Structure formats: structure tokens, C-alpha cells
């Protein structure tokens, strides 16, 4: 709205009521919700999120909104998708929504992933619901003609999320699991190290897990590979007003506080602190 070099205003977002088209389990743990949404909330960028005003259900009275990454968006079709895990009052409320119900959404919010031209070979490493956050990134990577390797971590192979989706965007998908030990830090270090040695990694993308973050920071520092991480923090407003969502970041030799909802949720891997 404004272009003030001193204090850039946030990109536009809107509060709208969207219509639920579907809301059904994807596997034992996750649900996929598709909404019909108006154009003013569909100028999205991968890595951005929405704040959902979750409905009350029974004893659950979620008061504040809940942040949820954009799993998919299609401005032409007027569609918006979220992939979520039922964790408590808010997400339990979301799970009660049926086709035809309305859901008040606020967004798109925050600063998403960047994809500088020199990042030709992308490696995406994530686990669980973190894969939801990275799904739109895979679509963008395909559109931009980048090579993409997606390492999807899960407890068991059947719980690995979105692998078909990543494949449909042309990614090479590698599933690693706790069950066979391939998701351990040592195994991953060897796997990713091999790809780096073969010159197949220009940048990393990840989210969530502090274990993965530390590993990618270590590999990134050793091999000069940049990358970005989508981070979480408890939020109240989601648009930058309340300062509830700050985290610490290491910038040079200083520790600075940044708002996950406004300066983030995507940050340079090198600056993030687990």
C-alpha cells in the first residue's frame, strides 16, 4: 500500500469468509481442507500462511486465530487448501467443518520463500506437517524450471506426507523413516553429503524440526550452501502488532529478535536458532 523505505508496510491481506468445499482425512493424522476463496486472498506466495478463526465445538472455545501454512492455492480456480494435524481445541474445531460451512480466514500473511536464479538444484528436507508448508514451493520450483529433490521424513513410510504431490511437480522423492533408521541425523548427513559431493545441491529448504535445522546449518556452513527455513511460534495477531511471536536469530555476532509472523515465517537457515 505504501512505499516507505523506513518502514515498509506489509503486503496486503484480507479478512474474508471462505466456503468449505471439502475437509477430509488424508491418513490417520492429517486432514486436507479445500476452500472456495475470493481473489483478494489468493495472491499468495509459497511459505506464507493464514490465520484461521477456528469454530467452537462443544467444550472447545478457541479464542485466538490459529496459524496455518498455505498447502495449495489457485487464484484462477478460486481455491485455497490447508493440510493440518489435529492438535487441540482449534484444529479439533476445524475438523468439524463440513462442505458448505463458512470459515473466516485472514491472509495471506508473512514473507514466503525466495528462489534466487542461481539456486538451480534445490533440496527440500522436511517432516510431518512441515511438508505441507513446502508443497507450494515444489510447484513454484517446477514452474521456474528448477531441479528438485524432496527428502520426506516420517515415522513409517505409509505416514510420509505429500510424496505423490511432490512427484507430480517433477521432484525426486526420497522417503526416510524412523522405522528403518534412515531418518536419523547420521543417515541423513551421509545421504545429503553424497548429493552435495555430486554437485546436486545449490540450496536447502526446510521447516519445523530443530534436528534437521542443525544438520542443514552444519552442512550449509561446511559447504557454503544457503537455504531457508519456515519457522513456527505461538501467535496472537499474526500480522505484526502484538510481538507475541518473536524468536531469536543470530545475525553476525549479534542476537536479534524477529517476529515470525511478519519478518518470517521464512528465514535464512544460517540465522535461525533451534
Amino acid at each position, binding site marked *: 500500500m505504501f512505499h516507505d523505505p523506513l518502514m515498509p508496510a506489509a503486503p*496486503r491481506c484480507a479478512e474474508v469468509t471462505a466456503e468449505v468445499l471439502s475437509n477430509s482425512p488424508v491418513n490417520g493424522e492429517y486432514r486436507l481442507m479445500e476452500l472456495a476463496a475470493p481473489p483478494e486472498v489468493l495472491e499468495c506466495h509459497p511459505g506464507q500462511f493464514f490465520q484461521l478463526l477456528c469454530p467452537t465445538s462443544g467444550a472447545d472455545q478457541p479464542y485466538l486465530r490459529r496459524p496455518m501454512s498455505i498447502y495449495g492455492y489457485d487464484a484462477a480456480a478460486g481455491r485455497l487448501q490447508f493440510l493440518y494435524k489435529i492438535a487441540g481445541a482449534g484444529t479439533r474445531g476445524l475438523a468439524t467443518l463440513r462442505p458448505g460451512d463458512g470459515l473466516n480466514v485472514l491472509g495471506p500473511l508473512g514473507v514466503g520463500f525466495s528462489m534466487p536464479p542461481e539456486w538451480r538444484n534445490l533440496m527440500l528436507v522436511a517432516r510431518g506437517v512441515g511438508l505441507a508448508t513446502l508443497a507450494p514451493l515444489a510447484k513454484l520450483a517446477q514452474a521456474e524450471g528448477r531441479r528438485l529433490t524432496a527428502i520426506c521424513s516420517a515415522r513409517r513410510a505409509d505416514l510420509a506426507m505429500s510424496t505423490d504431490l511432490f512427484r507430480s511437480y517433477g521432484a525426486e522423492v526420497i522417503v526416510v523413516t524412523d522405522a528403518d533408521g534412515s531418518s536419523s541425523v547420521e543417515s541423513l548427513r551421509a545421504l545429503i553429503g553424497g548429493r552435495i559431493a555430486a554437485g546436486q545441491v545449490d540450496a536447502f529448504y526446510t521447516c519445523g524440526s530443530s534436528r534437521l535445522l542443525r544438520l542443514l546449518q552444519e552442512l550449509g556452513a561446511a559447504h557454503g550452501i544457503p537455504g531457508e527455513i519456515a519457522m513456527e511460534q505461538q501467535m*496472537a*495477531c499474526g500480522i505484526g502488532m502484538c510481538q507475541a511471536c*518473536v524468536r531469536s536469530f543470530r545475525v553476525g555476532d549479534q542476537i536479534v*529478535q524477529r517476529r515470525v509472523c511478519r519478518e518470517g515465517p521464512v528465514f535464512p537457515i544460517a540465522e535461525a536458532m533451534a
Partner: protein
Amino acid sequence: MSDLSTKIGRLTLQNPIMPASGTFSEDLAAVFDLDRIGAHVLKTITAETRSGNPTPRVCELPGGMLNAIGIPSKGIDYFREHALPFWARYSAPLVVSISAHSAAEFATLARAVSLPGVAAIEANISCPNIEADGKAFAMSPESTEAVMRALRGATDLPLWAKLTPNTGEPIEVAQAAEAAGADALVVANTVLGMAIDIESRRPRLGNVMGGMSGPAIKPIALRMTYQCARAVAIPVIGCGGIATLDDVLEFLIAGARAVQVGTETFRSPTVMLRLIEALDQWMAARGIGSLDQIIGTIAAEADEAARHWGAAS
């Protein structure tokens, strides 16, 4: 269109709906045209830079939330060089909220923010006073009077005193602020509270205790607004749990000349606009031409009953 304008001392606001400090920032400009609200009340600033409290800084409760954000502040230089120029593009009056740990520091900061472009100073005297073992200034009439006198001596701008509902002497505190030269009272700040996670047995806030806000505190803020509006001649601005048109009307009827909307903006960033439109329609539908036909019009029976509760002076 009804006339929604209201006077807070020598300031005229185009409507009585404004944000509460700490629940508003330039980021809201991404959602709507900020010139539509009655005033712009900024997050409290301090003279020095401060980083604020540890996380978790908020926790949710039925009908509200607790916060212990602290007052992260980029300091006075940042305010002068960045915030002030940003807000200059708007015509809504700019209200700068300040805080300090002693009367003298408060006065110094008030002098420093008395700049062109600033329409009023809101003194957040609900914060700890280091000269009184960390007890908030607005807990007692004596410390309220001392800090407001120091502030009065430091600035010619309209001075609003933001009171705390945690005091047992709301009327005396309100009168002390008025006697010391406050131009208006903001009633009130958050209610001190606490929450514990029973599984981890840890406090749910990094800072252990925090301020409760949202609809759950509305009756407390409304009661105190009523008490203060009866006890002083200066305007009272109601604040606490306001989310609906009915809430706004209750505060106006109790005697508030304007209201501040805080936590509800987190749930619905456009709520202030909806309240302005709803108030306009409500007045138009009843043929009410101005807010003076609403403000302080509480039924007379209330007066008699209030005396028993010490609401009258």
C-alpha cells in the same frame, strides 16, 4: 450519516473508536485505511531500547487471553526517525503511549516525544514504578499524582492517564490524575492474572504472571469506567473487552466519551471499522444525531445503588 465526532478535551475525534496501545501498529495498514478510525494509539515506548519478556508471551483463555509481552521498545530515536514520519501521512490524531520507571524519567520522555505530529501523550502508568518496589504508579493516588504532576510540567500536549483495574482505589486514583492535570483518563489496562499448564506444572507465560484482556474483563473495565466517569470532570475513554456494538454502547452510556479496542483486533483486524459502521447505523435508526445523546445517559437508579458500592465520590 450521524455525527460520530467526540471531544476529548481540546482534541476532536471524527468517531469514538480507536485502538488500544499494544494491539495496533503500522502493519494494520495492510488490512484497511487507517484514517477511518478516531485516533492512532501506538504501542508504549520507553526511552531506552528493551527486548521484552521471554516466550511464551501470550496464552489463550476462555473469552480472552493473558499477555506478558513486556514493553519491547526500539527507543526514542527510532520513534523520532521512523515511526513519526510513517504516521505523518495520516490525519487521524496520533497518540503516543509512554512508560518509564520513575516520575523524572517519565517527564524526560514526555518532553522528548512532544514533537510536531503528536496530538496527545498517553501515560501508561499501569507499569511498575521502581521507586515503589515495582508497584504500578496507578495503584495508588499518591504515586499517580506525583507522576502526572511531573508529566504535566514537562509537556503542553494533551495528557491521557491510562489507569489499571488492579487498584482497590479506582476513584481516588482517577481524581489524583485529574488533580495533577491529566486531560483524560483511559480506563483501563489489563487485569493481572496467571495460568498454569497442569501437565508440565509450569506457568503458561514465560513471565509467570501477565495481563488479562478480552471479553472476559469487560464487566471490570465497564464498572471502573462508570466509577471514574462519575468521579471526574475530564473525559474518560473506556477500554477492556470491547468486541461488539453493544459493548461500545455500554461504555458510552456508562460515561465514556470514546473507547479503545484491543484484543478483538487480533481476532478480527477489521473490527474497528465494523463498530464505526454499526454505531452509525444504530444512531441513524433511532434518530440519534450525536453521541452526546448517548454518553453518560445511564438510568438514574444506578446512582443511588452505586453509592452503596462506593462508586460515587
